[in-house]
Every structure is written in structure tokens, then in C-alpha cells.
């Protein structure tokens, strides 16, 4: 199967959650607290794209499908796009840029600190996306982009930390992240063992 042929379709699919949200806004279909519903919808989609990004390497390892790494970039950018919309909704839709209230809200709400941490990491990863930046950064690029796991952790804490006790949703995302991270650690552990075994006896 050639993934390149799917690209336009996948690109459109990535915009669908936003289209769906806009439709729900127009139809007044978001319930009594529409502002919060928008926050949750955009945050959820950013986290979902983040999970998809992290799933690509394990899927490639298991299926030998090549050419997926190209999509990692795209899904990564959509993680950033939905996270940015989530932030803008907070600042503009909810607070209408009343900075005095925003400042107090951020200062006193520790759950928001986790969200900011996640966003700053995702922002750094997004601005280092262009190919010439990748070249320029060399080995540092990979090091920087490993921070995506911290972004995932912070995003999930951001979710956990604002709930009163019903933790089902963040637990769901947490288990996915742990599964994906665990898979990578298992693979890297296996590779290390194999590499060691391949060395001549005296150098093991």
C-alpha cells in the first residue's frame, strides 16, 4: 500500500474535528456550558493527535509499513494546531482577553501550569519542524523531540488536575501513553541485547 496516495484524504480528515466543532457551535449543540465544551473538545483532539504521533513508530515496527514517518510530522503539526486553538479559546472565547482575570486565573490554577508546560514543549517542537531547521540542528533535533513524552505527561496531568474525582477519561489517555512508551522501551531494550550478542565474544 502506498501511503502517499492517502495524504490528501488524511489531511482533510485532520480538519474534520474542527469542522464538526464549528457545526456544533452554529447549531448551538454544545449544552449549557458551551465555552467549556469548546475547551474540552479542542484539548481532547490535541491529546488524541499526540497519541497518534506516538503510535507511529510502534506501528511501523510491527507492520514494516514504511513511509509513515512523513505523517508523524503532519500529525505533530495538528497536535500543535489543536493545542493552539485550545489556548486561543481560553484567552479569547472564555476570557475575551481580560488580562487581569486571566492573570489571577493562571496564577491560582495549578492545573493550567501543566497545560502551559505541555504547550511550550509542543510549540518548540512545531517551530523546529521545517526541514532546514532539522538539518541545522543535527543530533540535537532528535534530543529536543524526545521531549514529546514530557508534553504527553504534562497534558495528561493538565487533564487529571482539574477534575473532582471522576478520572476515567485521563486514565484512558494515560494508559495509551504508557502502552506506547512501554513498547518503545521494550524495543530499545531488545535491540541493545541483540547488539551486545552480535559483538565478538571478548567485547561483550
Amino acid at each position, binding site marked *: 500500500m502506498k501511503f502517499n496516495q492517502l495524504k490528501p484524504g488524511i489531511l482533510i480528515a485532520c480538519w474534520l474535528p474542527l469542522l464538526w466543532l464549528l457545526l456544533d457551535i452554529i447549531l448551538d449543540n454544545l*449544552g449549557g456550558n458551551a465555552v467549556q465544551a469548546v475547551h474540552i473538545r479542542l484539548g481532547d483532539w490535541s491529546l488524541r493527535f499526540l497519541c497518534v504521533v506516538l503510535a507511529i513508530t510502534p506501528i511501523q515496527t510491527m507492520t514494516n509499513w514504511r513511509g509513515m514517518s512523513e505523517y508523524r510530522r503532519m500529525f505533530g503539526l495538528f497536535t500543535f494546531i489543536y493545542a493552539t486553538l485550545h489556548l486561543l479559546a481560553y484567552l479569547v472565547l472564555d476570557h475575551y482577553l481580560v488580562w487581569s482575570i486571566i492573570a489571577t486565573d493562571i496564577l491560582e490554577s495549578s492545573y493550567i501550569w501543566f497545560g502551559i508546560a505541555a504547550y511550550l514543549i509542543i510549540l518548540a517542537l512545531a517551530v523546529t519542524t521545517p526541514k532546514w531547521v532539522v538539518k541545522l540542528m543535527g543530533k540535537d533535533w532528535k534530543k529536543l523531540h524526545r521531549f514529546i513524552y514530557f508534553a504527553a505527561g504534562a497534558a495528561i496531568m493538565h487533564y487529571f488536575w*482539574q477534575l473532582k474525582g471522576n478520572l476515567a477519561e485521563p486514565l484512558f489517555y494515560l494508559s495509551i501513553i504508557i502502552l506506547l512508551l512501554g513498547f518503545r522501551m521494550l524495543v530499545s531494550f531488545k535491540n541493545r541485547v541483540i547488539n551486545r550478542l552480535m559483538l565478538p565474544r571478548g567485547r561483550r
Partner: protein
Amino acid sequence: MIIKTKKTIPASEITDPHVFKERRKIIKALFALTAMGSGIAPVMAANKSRWADVPESSLSADLITTPSEIIENYTNYYEFSYNKHDSTKLAQHLPTDPWSVEISGEVEKSGTYYLEDILGQQALQEHIYRFRCVEAWSMVIPWVGFGLGDFLKKARPLSTAKFVKFTSVYQPEVMPRQKKDTLLEWPYSEGLRIDEAMHPLTLLAVGMYGDTMPKQNGAPLRLVVPWKYGFKSIKAIVKIELLKKAPNTSWNRFAPGEYGFYANVNPNVPHPRWSQNSERLLGSGFFTPRRETELFNGYGEQVAGLYKDMNLQHFF
């Protein structure tokens, strides 16, 4: 005694109820046409309004009320579900007729009374109050009810009665979270100091918007304490006890560092994980800034005296 507060919500903050209703009509028509699923399951109001003509309380604030459709479809009722949409649907299964309330403890006349008999003795009034949830959203609700103090006086509290404990109904057959015994200790219970309970603002509510109480909003009998966070205003009350000592309360027992016994609305005391400085007034649209939360939810003139010598940071 007339205690009116002059603070009102600017009209610009709120969707005009007529506009809101018209918009919903159009949307419903659209849904009927397209047969699409809806995010809101509107609960149909009964045709006749039982208490349409009750007089308005002098304690009512001159505020624009939140559309009933929002109040009826945005409720925390953890006995049924953690999800506000599902709890509205599931709450319809709660049998509320007949209903009786037990009053006991430090009183001369303890006993169990049918709600209909209580209603015959109490003068109902409409009370338009602000309602502020600990989750940082708020509403303005036209409750129908009577003073808790008036009700307690009938049982003749003893001088040893220092606190009042309220207990919600225990019905695991229809309340899934009680059946699974999750999160809070069931049945839900709450408490007030006796002077808070006797305060004229404190209500036992039996309805809203001139009609009987929707089940998801705490039918048939709930507490309303407008200067405290919403979780203090316990729903579906079956037992009221007057006590010598402060009772355990549900959320306080679950997370004592997060939900205090007093739970007075206070913008200066943040929840450990989020600010209480501002609130989303439901019914206000996009691009409307949050409302700045007021100390005692705007009822400071009436209730600040109850907490005169107390450190509100400590007794949160």
C-alpha cells in the same frame, strides 16, 4: 425586613431568554428535519405550573434568570452519573411521590412528615438567587421554597442543637453510583451551623420557575444556601438531624483539603487546584468575559456577620 442587593448582571452578559428560546426552536426544527443526534436531551416541562402564582420573596435579587433549559440540563448528581447529561436522564427514574422527611436529634418534637403535609404548613415564595458551583460556573435560579428556619422551628430545636445534618435519599436500585459504591460515601450528606440554617436566605426548595422541582435538580425537596458553593445545597433530602457537634459531610470527607465544611463562596480562597476568582455565568455567550466572583456570592451584606471573627482562609 427587606434585604435586597443592588448588584445585577449587566443585560449585555446574558442571552435574552426570548432569543434563546427562539434559537432553540429553530434548532429543534432542524433536528427534526435532519434526525441528527442532539447533545442536549431537553426534558419536557409539565403542562401546568403548580406554583406559578407564589409571591416573590423580598430576599430575591433583581437579576435575569438563567434559561430553565440550561438549569435542567446542567446538573451535578453523582448518585446517577459523573456526567451532567447522563445524570439528567437517569434522575428521571427516582420515585419522588410520596416523600417523607424525618426530623430528629436535639429537638423537642422529632418525627417523620409527609412532604405534602409540610407544604400545607409553609408559605411558599419565589426566591431568585445566584448559584455558584465549586467548578467555577454559575447560574441565577428562581427557586420556589420556604425558609429552612421556619421549618426547623416547628420541631422546636433545643438549646443544645448547634449543627444541622442533612441526608439524601439512598436508592441504589435507581442510582448507579450508589449501587457500585463509588467515589463518595453514600448516601450524600451535608451540614450547616445552626445560625446558618436559621438564616432567612437558607431555603428548603420544592420547585423552580414556578413549577415543581425537576428530578435532576433535586426533587422533591432540596437545600439552597446561596452564599455557599453548590455542593452544600444537598438534593432529595430524607433526613434532617439537629446535632451537638459538626457532622461529617460527603465532599469534605472525600477530600478535606479541597472541600471545607463551610464552603463559603470566596474569590480570595482558591481551590488547591484551580482559581475561584472568576466564574462562567451560564447563558452568557462566547466572547463574554467571565464574571468576577463575589465574596459570599454577593450575599455579604446579609451573611458576613455570621463569620465576623473567623479566619476565612482557615475555615474555608
